């Protein structure tokens, strides 16, 4: 695989792994049958993401994308987080092989699912 140094680093020692017990936003995407699945846990206070964690079953790109995305999310406003695109994750990772773009998309979708969950809870 033509993974960047950054991908390998994040895969080797991913940031923010785990279940965030005090999360008030939760999203999950994927399934075992598909070969990847991500759960995104966010703690949002005053419209700001205070804490972010993930659990991912998937390849190195999926794990590294989750790691980078959770790093990026911390400190973002909800609006900023909504605008988070997979391209930004890829850029942060120093690129992803063609065949692995979809992994970053999965993470983007997991973030969106978590934000929708948060908004649903607010109603």
């Amino acid at each position: 695989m033509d993974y960047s140094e950054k991908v390998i680093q994040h895969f080797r020692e991913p940031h923010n792994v785990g279940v965030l017990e005090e999360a008030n936003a939760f999203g999950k995407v994927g399934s075992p049958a598909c070969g990847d699945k991500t759960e995104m846990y966010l703690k949002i206070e005053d419209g700001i993401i205070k804490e972010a964690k993930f659990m991912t079953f998937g390849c190195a790109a999926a794990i590294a994308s989750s790691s980078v995305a959770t790093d990026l999310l911390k400190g973002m406003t909800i609006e900023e987080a909504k605008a988070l695109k997979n391209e930004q994750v890829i850029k942060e990772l120093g690129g992803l092989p063609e065949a692995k773009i979809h992994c970053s998309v999965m993470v983007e979708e997991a973030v969106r699912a978590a934000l929708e969950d948060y908004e649903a809870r607010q109603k």
Partner: protein
Amino acid sequence: MKEVYLDYAATAPIDLDVKQAVDEANEKYFGNASSLHTIGQRAKGQMEQARETIARYINAAEANEVYFTSGGTESDNWAIKGIALAQMEKGKHIITSAIEHHAVLHACEFMEKMGFEVTYLPVARDGSVRIADLKAAIREDTILITIMAANNEIGTIQPIKEIGEIARKRGILFHTDAVQALGSMPLDVQAMQIDLMSISAHKVYGPKGVGAMYIKKGTEIENLMHGGAHELRRRAGTNNVPGIVGFGKAVELLKQNEAVYVAHYTQMRDYLRDRIENELDEVILNGHQEKRLPNNLNVSFAYVEGEALLLSLDMEGICVSTGSACSSGSLKPSHVIEALGLDENYLHGTVRFTVGRQTTKEDIDYTVDRLKSVIARLRSMSPLYKDSKNS
């Protein structure tokens, strides 16, 4: 860092004796084997000795039934396309299995585009083709049965002797892809009633870029490589004499030492298997547990993804493959694993360990130790694992 190579089925390093034979050929037998002069004829002599060695090893009736090619892929393509085109007057139906190597499957798919019909036999959970399925698939217009001798991913050995018997009785040509089988199990083209057989040098510690096809005398086959009059006019292209000489040497080594090699493979593989079975939970051993290649262990680890596992092991210096070494780079489980009907939690966590002549007990111990922590780490971040523990 320590390096442990457990991917011998992808390719093996060249044996030192083989390398020496290739070197000598490069120096003394560099001529074009088609040249009439002494330097050409000397090269030809060496090539014919290699042909003889290989022919005897597979028990061909004549040396001239062995044709040199560029590798297993070419042999497979040639067998399928060449037989289909030469025999299409008789019929346009081919039978193969769902777990053949891509060289066979994609050649078959190409022939479908050319107007042929192909039946892809399913396999049992252990990867075996069922004889009843084969018999049921045979039609009046079946011209070729192509079933591999042993599977490259899961190691399952197919009942090729029975298949050969059925094919011969029904007047259907039988091709077997023996690329992985060579050197790990007996191959006797006469006893097994094989009409065509593909083999490749680099899987048996020979040079890369050389293979061969056994074609039973009298079999009509169209060429894949058209051109010069090499290989009795059946396979054009300047002969790779040093490579062929190396292939001959590699097979000579098999003839001399195969039992020793196989015993070593088996011992290493069984030790690896036992340690994994005893020290890791939620694992499945794929393939047939007795009728299997001695050097192959294929394991599915629940809740983790194969590529992540492969890379994690690679970071520890351990080289293995996931799915098929040849189709890696895709996220889907390989067609072989898919055909086995595994539980979804295991489907994507498959690793193939293949041991070889250089494998030591220390290599295995190191591998299992690292494997345990790698699996633990990946499971610790897997939502599937978490859910399984919570439910």
